[in-house]
């Protein structure tokens, strides 16, 4: 088996992974940084982010306000030390991104322009028309090419963390091209593998978002934190789940029901005066209620409401939202300049993830995490739109700094033991490849998983269906062991990859369902019909899910408060 | 040969660009009258008899032999457009490997033609 050695290994080439790689490479020109990704970095799903990235930029704004908005958005479950660090680093990180060539939209005076976003008191979202993620990812990727000490492993699938002597010292990665395993050793590992929206049927997430990093850490004994909090984005296209950015509302778009009413204004859904600029969880709930009240439209992919941009005019749509125009035209055949766009809430983002401290460090020495896969936590029970791209930058960089420090003070570990673990993993996966026994089909299990998760952990949740979901997912986990794989070729065997991903998804879904069923309150994105209010007395803590062969074992972790006291979350 | 071509590529491209632009603009009227209308007798060829042709092609403006310059351009530039496009046509049909030799030969033809053309104009 090929073995290579680096100072640190970064798993994932999205916004967080690339930022981490650049930080490490720039500060340590002599260090060797491995960047391992299952797709070429520019294909990472950061590419799809549309709206923008938040950081204080205007004179009428300040860090305090950004911090408060974030804490309030998180329904007071976000850690306030992390949030303060986050808002303070945010402007510097976005300025760096600008220096590296990201084509941000501009104001008249040549400064970077900002737009309004849900839950933010003022315009603090930096944008590049409606393709910020694409531009951010490409700017980072292209900038990273400058550093010759970043060694890329493109299209390598990481399926196991190598742990020796209680320290994470590398990864076992399947070279998708050859079908052979490769041991990639480093004195520290950073997971930046993104979210896992593909657990759900309707999602804005791409097919590569299967929660791999969460599953890797989880199996290595690191707890997953706050997994029950899944963000539904209010405006996805029915059918495909393709995102129509929140910036449509930031720029002044309206939501309408089948009566033509702006229901967020006409009825009281608790978003108050913010109406369309309310936070995502609340607007998603409002839409579901609107539909349940019989004021939705019927369509081939279920009921929906409308997002009306017609009053913005063609010029504004073309300059600020050109991608939305294209997406609506291509995927639902609607011209937003003249007609409203059909939309419905879709799964968008996972607030929870690998538990880390403010430095990105996990409980397992040598293992770090950043980006959507991590839970620092600044997002708490509900993320504010445009905070997560900035989070990738801020905590990607922080994790890299701390991982490099750790790496400098650590030893190489026992190479033979580490390679042996990788050999074992290679044998396991080799066994899986093209095993023409077993009765389960990948696509069937995936579909079942999707159905279960939607009914158990939707916008509104009920104890009954959640409990049922827990049982159903546990069953799916045992059925995954009985997958039938047809493809026995080594080269670019995507069936094998899909099988590994499915196993990860099921594992992550189980922690999600179990965490959700346990939280008997309504907080942020977790809305229980049986327990409709927030219960700070009993549930103001982070849910921790630990790996356990029989199913996740739950624990608690204190929320870091101190600056802002919990209060009712009203907009 | 490929390396030499590579070094001269900017110059070649410049000549080609002039060929396609100026060459085309000058050729249209030339072909129309000299190649079609006069031979068909629609325009009397005597309008361009030896004496008048001599006169016309040596017209100068403010001491600049403007007609001769234009004529030189008309003769020389199309050859560069020709050479370059024939070369790319041959590449399109799978001639990437031979390109060094083919290109060199074609541009040599263009160079020889250019010298002949300038000679012809000077000889009027």
């Amino acid at each position, binding site marked *: 088996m090929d073995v290579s050695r680096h100072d640190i290994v970064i798993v994932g080439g999205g916004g967080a992974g690339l930022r981490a790689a650049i930080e490490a490479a720039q500060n340590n020109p002599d260090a060797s940084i491995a960047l391992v990704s299952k*797709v070429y970095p520019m294909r990472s799903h950061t590419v799809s982010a549309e709206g923008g990235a938040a950081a204080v930029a205007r004179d009428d704004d300040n860090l305090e306000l950004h911090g408060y908005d974030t804490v309030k958005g998180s329904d007071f479950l976000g850690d306030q030390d992390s949030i303060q660090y986050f808002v303070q680093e945010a402007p510097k990180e976005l300025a760096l991104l600008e220096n590296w060539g990201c084509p*941000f939209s501009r104001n008249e005076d040549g400064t970077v322009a900002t737009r309004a976003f849900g839950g933010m008191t003022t315009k603090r979202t930096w944008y590049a028309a409606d393709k910020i993620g694409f531009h951010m990812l490409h700017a980072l990727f292209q900038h990273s090419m400058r550093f010759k000490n970043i060694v890329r492993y493109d299209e390598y699938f990481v399926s196991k963390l190598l742990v020796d002597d209680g320290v994470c010292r590398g990864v076992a990665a399947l070279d998708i091209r050859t079908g052979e395993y490769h041991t990639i050793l480093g004195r520290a590992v950073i997971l930046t593998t993104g979210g896992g929206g593909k657990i759900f049927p309707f999602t804005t997430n791409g097919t590569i978002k299967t929660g791999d990093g969460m599953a890797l850490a989880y199996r290595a004994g690191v707890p997953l934190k706050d997994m029950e909090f899944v963000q539904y984005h209010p405006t996805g296209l029915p059918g495909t789940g*393709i995102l129509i950015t929140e910036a449509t509302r930031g720029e002044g778009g309206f939501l309408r029901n089948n009566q033509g009413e702006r229901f967020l204004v006409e009825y009281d859904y608790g978003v108050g005066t913010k109406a369309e600029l309310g936070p995502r969880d609340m607007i998603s709930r409002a839409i579901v209620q609107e539909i349940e009240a019989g004021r939705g439209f019927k369509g081939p992919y279920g009921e929906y409401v409308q997002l009306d941009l017609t009053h913005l005019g063609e010029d504004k749509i073309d300059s600020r939202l050109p991608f939305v125009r294209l997406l609506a035209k291509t995927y639902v055949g609607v011209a937003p300049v003249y007609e409203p766009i059909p939309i419905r809430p879709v799964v968008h983002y996972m607030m929870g993830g690998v538990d880390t401290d403010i430095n990105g460090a996990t409980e397992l020495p040598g293992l770090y995490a950043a980006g959507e896969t991590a839970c620092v936590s600044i997002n708490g029970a509900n993320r504010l739109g445009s905070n997560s791209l900035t989070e990738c930058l801020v905590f990607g960089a922080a994790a890299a700094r701390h991982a490099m420090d750790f790496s400098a003070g650590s030893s190489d570990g026992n190479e033979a033991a580490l390679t042996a673990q990788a050999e074992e993993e290679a044998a396991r996966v080799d066994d899986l490849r093209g095993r023409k026994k077993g009765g389960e089909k990948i696509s069937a299990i995936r579909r079942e998983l999707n159905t279960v998760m939607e009914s158990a952990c939707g916008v509104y949740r009920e104890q009954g269906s959640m409990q049922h979901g827990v049982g159903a997912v546990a069953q799916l986990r045992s059925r995954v062991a009985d997958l039938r794989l047809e493809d026995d070729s080594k080269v670019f065997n995507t*069936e094998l990859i899909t099988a590994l991903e499915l196993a990860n998804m099921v594992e992550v879904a189980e922690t999600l369902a179990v965490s959700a069923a346990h939280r008997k309150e309504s907080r942020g994105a977790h809305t229980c019909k049986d327990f409709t209010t927030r219960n700070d007395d009993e549930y103001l803590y982070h849910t921790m899910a630990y790996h356990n062969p029989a199913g996740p074992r739950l624990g608690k972790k204190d929320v870091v408060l101190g600056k802002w006291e919990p209060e009712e979350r009203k907009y | 040969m490929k390396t030499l071509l590579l070094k001269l590529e*900017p110059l070649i491209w410049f000549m080609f660009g002039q060929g396609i632009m100026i060459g085309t603009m000058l050729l249209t009227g030339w072909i129309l009258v000299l190649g079609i209308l006069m031979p068909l007798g629609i325009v009397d060829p005597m309008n361009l008899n030896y004496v008048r042709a001599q006169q016309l092609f040596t017209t100068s403006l403010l001491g600049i032999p403007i007609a001769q310059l234009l004529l030189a351009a008309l003769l020389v530039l199309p050859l560069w457009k020709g050479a370059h496009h024939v070369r790319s046509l041959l590449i399109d049909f799978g001639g990437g490997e031979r390109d060094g030799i083919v290109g060199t030969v074609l541009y040599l033809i263009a160079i020889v033609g250019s010298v002949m053309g300038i000679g012809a104009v000077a000889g009027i």
Partner: protein
Amino acid sequence: MSTTEKTIVISRFDPDQDEAPRKQEYKVPCDPSWKVLDAVNFIKDELDSTVSHRWSCRMAVCGSCGMMVNGEPKLTCKTALDEYGDRVEIEPLANFPVVRDLVVELDGFMHKFESVKPWIKRVKERAEDMENFNEKGTYSQSAEELGQFKQFSMCINCMLCYSACPVVANEPEFLGPAAIALGHRYNLDTRDEGTEERHEIFRGEGTVFSCSYANECSEVCPKGVDPAAAVNQAKFGAVIDWAKGLVLPRAPHAAD
């Protein structure tokens, strides 16, 4: 919704078993709302899980799902299946070595991409250069200056243009449309100072002058980048800098 049955022909190649690519036909019940990619995914999910292809975002932005559809390079997640008749042929991108089925070799492309030095190059690093920044730490750039290169920054690296370009097919060294467009994008960016160096690269091995302005790249580009415009603008700049270089001494190069 009613489906229509179409015959989807997929080009198969497995280096372990096949000497050369072969065709395989599938009968697929197609929904009228489907994109071409949906049909391939249906085959993968329901009919034959050994078919290999790349895709991810299914919203025309990650650039991974380029394939030849009835002989033309297409972004399959953006191309409606309805545009085609009852028989649709899907092949891997033309002009690329084929790794497996619909998967092509990307490393040659990545190499070209990287060789134009696609990052902001400065003669002086940011820290030594504060007068160019405002107090927020960002460069000043007007909307108009942004507009000059914005279009060329929209490339999703889907490589359709490489599949369409006749010169790419025959001249392996040619940098090709997307890579040149990318270099040109940085050249037009007011924050960058690496133009002369990139023009030198443009005159090197993979010379921009190889382009014969077929314009096919721009015809097939799904993102309106118009790489042909970039390539031909780049020729102009490369010639000017070349001429300058004949008479003037060379300015110091920007740091890598």
